[in-house]
């Protein structure tokens, strides 16, 4: 009986993992866009980038998620209605969760990437431009490989916070790890002693396992990207 619940919670872990990785991908793209906007020569782009990173980081994730999930749903249907159709669209909560979390953590990534890009000597990009490479080529082949090392510590932090924030998608009705653990606890109350505590603690252990494993993985990555780096010793 207990094992049935534990299996379903384990299945929820897979969904949590998908939400986390999906939103990480969105966040990296948003972060690169945000960082380029904030470092751009165009004042309008700079203002847009600053507004994005300041406003998003000043509002709780949960409020933004509720706003985008419920508001987005309503806005989309109003749009469809104004186009003369009476179809009703239900936003897929998985996509809503991934896009919202990605959008939020993109703001944090913006700051991480901006710092990393600024720490790369300007001469690097200028040399590339002087060789006749296009701006995109310069970014992809010269700036990006060097900024990975500088961005990794901040990236690791953001990833761990993002992973823990995925628990919030359970409040949108997505059946992730947290949601299933809560349901299992409620369903098994009375039949399994202290079920809510038991299943919640199991969920907590799973989160702890994911973050521990990813910490190890990211440390390997950090060592790889620091290859050949000269470290000054006092």
């Amino acid at each position: 009986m207990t094992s049935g619940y534990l299996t379903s919670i384990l299945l929820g872990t897979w969904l949590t993992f998908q939400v986390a990785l999906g939103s990480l991908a969105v966040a990296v793209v948003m972060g690169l866009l945000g960082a380029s906007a904030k470092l751009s020569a165009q004042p309008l782009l700079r203002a847009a980038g600053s507004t994005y990173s300041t406003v998003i980081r000043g509002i709780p994730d949960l409020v933004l998620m509720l706003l985008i999930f419920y508001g987005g749903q309503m806005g989309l249907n109003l749009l469809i209605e104004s186009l003369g159709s009476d179809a009703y669209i239900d936003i897929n909560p998985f996509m809503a969760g991934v896009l919202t979390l990605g959008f939020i953590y993109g703001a944090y990534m913006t700051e991480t990437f901006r710092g990393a890009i600024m720490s790369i000597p300007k001469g690097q990009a200028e040399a590339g431009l002087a060789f006749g490479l296009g701006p995109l080529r310069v970014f992809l082949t010269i700036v990006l490989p060097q900024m990975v090392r500088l961005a990794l510590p901040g990236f690791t932090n953001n990833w761990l916070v993002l992973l823990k924030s995925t628990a919030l998608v359970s409040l949108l009705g997505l059946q992730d790890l947290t949601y299933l653990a809560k349901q299992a606890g409620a369903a098994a109350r009375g039949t399994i002693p202290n079920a809510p505590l038991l299943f919640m603690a199991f969920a907590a252990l799973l989160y702890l396992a994911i973050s521990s494993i990813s910490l190890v993985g990211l440390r390997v990555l950090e060592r790889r990207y620091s290859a050949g780096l000269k470290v000054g010793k006092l």
Partner: protein
Amino acid sequence: MQFGVIFESQHLAMYLAGTGVALQLLLACLVLGGAAAIPLALMRVSAHRWLSAPVWLFTYVIRGTPLLIQLYIIYYGVAQLEWIQARWNDVWPWTAFKSAFFCAVLAFAINTCAYTVEMLAGAIRNTSAGEIEAAQAMGMSRWQTLWRVVLPSALRRTLPAYSNEVIMMLHSTSLASAVPAVLDITGVARSIYSKYYLPFEAFITAGLIYLTLTFVLVGLFRLAEGRWLAYLQPRAAG
């Protein structure tokens, strides 16, 4: 957009009350978590394994799991234990577990305590050797050095990192709306949303309140840094 609904007096009053609840949650968890963090940080930097290891485990577990799970563990897990429910009508302190507000404060306090311990322990470890040597040269004992030199200096140097933590905790109080019967800013927004089906108006108002509170906190910490950390500021030109 129908922001008129938000500006009706009974709804403004709800948001105001929600702001009060959020600030109470924030203050209570910061005071409790901060007070517990100081002795724990001292244990964390201790050379004795059996003092530092339990604190390391505590901060590792708390910082590696979502706050929502911690809140559920307290509210649905611990508060529903038969042992506690047998006592929560008359035996102090277990009576407190009847209140959802207390459960939220407890979960938030434990959470912020773990993060504060690590910050403070880092600052204590980074105390410059000269400060400690000077204290020893003055003939201070271990505890005197700790109490008069290391702690005041470490607490000051924690300020910039702690301001981030306070803002994160302000945002975290929005999770209190996930347990029934706590109507903080987010809880008010959710109830107005479900009553009038006005997602934009309800949640944008909540977002603006949080944004304002965030800016106020940033300003307060800037003042605090000017007061207590002025000696580390870069020298003004000229």
